[in-house]
C-alpha cells in the first residue's frame, strides 16, 4: 500500500507546492489511487502472480470485508478531473519513498507507480533505499508518500486497524505503524469494540464500517497482495504457510 502524511501540513519534497499538503485533500488521494494501473503492473512486473488488493487484508483473512470489495479503478481521466476539482489542474510534484530490498520488486513497482502518477500530473520524485534505513526515516516523518507492506500477525482484520488505522497513541500502543497518522474518530471508537465483540456478525458489521470509512477517505492506496514464490528441488516436499514463514520441521527430504 501507499501511505500519506495525513498530518503533514506541507510537502517536504515538492518543487512547486510549499505551503500546503495536497494529500490532505481526499480528492487528491483518490486521484492518486485512480492513477495506478494494477492490471498492467501485474502483467508486466509480477508475471500475473499478484492479486490486486482493495483493503488492508486479502480475501480469506478473518474480517475481510466482502461488502467493500471494490478498489479505485484505473481511470487517469477521473484522476485529472479530481485534481482539477481540488485546485491542481496541472498537478504538482512530491517525493515518493520506497525500499529497494524489502518487498518483491519493490523498486520496480515504485518506478512504475511514479510514471503512472506522472501521467496524471503528479510528478513523483522517487527515492529508494535499503529497509534498514527506511523505518527510522518514516518515524521521523521524512516523506510525502511511502510504500508499506503489512502482514496481519493475528490473521485478522483487527491487526492492521490497530497498527495502521488507529490514531497514534504511544501510551496505549496503538497506531505505532501509522506513520502518516491517519486519524478518524469513528475508527478509533470502533477499535476497542471490535476487540471485545464475540458475535461474528456484529463484529463484521463494525469492521465493514471501518473499511467503508477508510476506503472513502483513501487512508491508504491498497496495491496488491504479495505472492508466495518458493522453489525446491524435486526430492523435497514442503508445506507452504500462508504467512510465508518457513518451518523446517514441515520439510521432508526424500
Amino acid at each position: 500500500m501507499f501511505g500519506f502524511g495525513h498530518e503533514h501540513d506541507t510537502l517536504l519534497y515538492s518543487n512547486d507546492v510549499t505551503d500546503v499538503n495536497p494529500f490532505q485533500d481526499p480528492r487528491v488521494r483518490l486521484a492518486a489511487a485512480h492513477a495506478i494501473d494494477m492490471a498492467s503492473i501485474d502483467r508486466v512486473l509480477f508475471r500475473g502472480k499478484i492479486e490486486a488488493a482493495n483493503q488492508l487484508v486479502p480475501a480469506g483473512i478473518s474480517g475481510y470485508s466482502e461488502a467493500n470489495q471494490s478498489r479505485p479503478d484505473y481511470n487517469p481521466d477521473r484522476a485529472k478531473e479530481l485534481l482539477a476539482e481540488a485546485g491542481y489542474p496541472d498537478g504538482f510534484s512530491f517525493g515518493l519513498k520506497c525500499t529497494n530490498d524489502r518487498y518483491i520488486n519493490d523498486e520496480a513497482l515504485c518506478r512504475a507507480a511514479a510514471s503512472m502518477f506522472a501521467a496524471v500530473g503528479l510528478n513523483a520524485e522517487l527515492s529508494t533505499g535499503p529497509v534498514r534505513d527506511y523505518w527510522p526515516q518514516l518515524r521521523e516523518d521524512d516523506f510525502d508518500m511511502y510504500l508499506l507492506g503489512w502482514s496481519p500477525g493475528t490473521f485478522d482484520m483487527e491487526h492492521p486497524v490497530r497498527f495502521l488505522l488507529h490514531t497514534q497513541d504511544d501510551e496505549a500502543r496503538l497506531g505505532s505503524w501509522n506513520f502518516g497518522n491517519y486519524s478518524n474518530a469513528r475508527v478509533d471508537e470502533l477499535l476497542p469494540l471490535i476487540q471485545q465483540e464475540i458475535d461474528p456478525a456484529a463484529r463484521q458489521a463494525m469492521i465493514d464500517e471501518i473499511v467503508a470509512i477508510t476506503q472513502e477517505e483513501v487512508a491508504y492506496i491498497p496495491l496488491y497482495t504479495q505472492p508466495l514464490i518458493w522453489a525446491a528441488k524435486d526430492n523435497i516436499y514442503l508445506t507452504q504457510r500462508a504467512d510465508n514463514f518457513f518451518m523446517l520441521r514441515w520439510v521432508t527430504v526424500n
Partner: protein
Amino acid sequence: MVYFIAKRLVQSVFVMLAVAFLAFSLFRFVGDPITQMTGVETSVQDQERLREDLGLNDPFIYQFARFTGDMLKGDFGFSYRTRQPVAEMIATRIPATLELGIVALLISLFVGIPAGVYTALRPRGIATQTILMLTLVGVSIPTFVIGIILIFFFGVQLGWLPTFGRGGTVNLGGWETSFLTVDGWRALILPAITLGVYQLTLTMRLVRAEMMDVMQSDYIRFATARGVPMRRLYFKHALANTMVPVITIIGLQFGGVIAFSIVTESVFQWPGMGLLFLESIRFVDIPVMGVYLVVIAFFFVLVNLIVDLLYVFIDPRLRIKDVS
C-alpha cells in the same frame, strides 16, 4: 628476528585499533539495528528500552571503549541477529573462507607463475598472445559474472559440479574441511577458480613484466656469456629475482582475497566469513560487523608479516644487513 616479529605484532595492535575506531564511527550510519531485531508488534517504548539496554544511546566514545575493552578481555559479544556468540559464529566460518582463499591462491600461483615465465621467455609466440588476450578478458570481467558463467556451464548445462554451497565436509577437531572428500573438492573448484582468476591474471602479468626486466639485467648477461645452462639461468637466477615484488603483490592480494571474498561467496552461497559479513550488513548486526573488521585487520597484518619474512628468505641482500 624475534625482535622484528614482536615489533610487528605490537604495530598490529595499533592497526586493529585504528580499524575498530573507523568502523565504529561508521556504524551510526548503517541503519537501525533495533527495527531489524524486533517485530511489528514491539511498541515504541519497548524499542527505546532495548536501545537503552544495548547501550546504543551512549556517546560514541563510551561505546567504542566498551567494545575494545570487551575484545581485550576476549568477549566478542553476541550477534543481534542470531543471538549466538560472535566469536563462535566467525570461528565456524573461518575454515570455509581460508580454504577457498588458499585454493584460489594456489591456482593463481601454479597457473600464473609458469604462464608469466613462458610469456616472458617467448614474447612473440602465438601462445603468448593468446594467453595475454585471455588474461585481459579475465581481468575485465567482474568476478560475479565469471562466477555466474561458470555456474551456468558446469553446473546447469553440463551438471558436472554443484552450483552452490560447500558439499560434504569432514570435521577435523572443529575445523570443517572440504579437502578430504571428493564432494568437497567438487564444490570448491568453481568458487576457487572464480576467486583466483583476477589474482591469476595479475600474477601472470607481473611475473612477465618483472622477468622481462630481469632478463635485461647485467648479471643475466654475464651468466649467459659465461655459459650457465639456460634452465638454471631462468629458474634459479631470473625467477628468484623476479619474485620479490611479485611476493609483495601476492601477499597484499591474498589479504584482499580473504577479506573480500564477499562477492564470490555470495554468488556461490559459500558459507564463509564474507557471506556472514554481507548478511550482517543487511540486518545491521553491529557486533558481528565490528569483530569481523578487526579480525580482517589482524589478518592483513599477519599476511604482511609473513611476506616480509619471506623477503629475507628469498633475497640474499636482505640477509646481509641487520633486519630491524
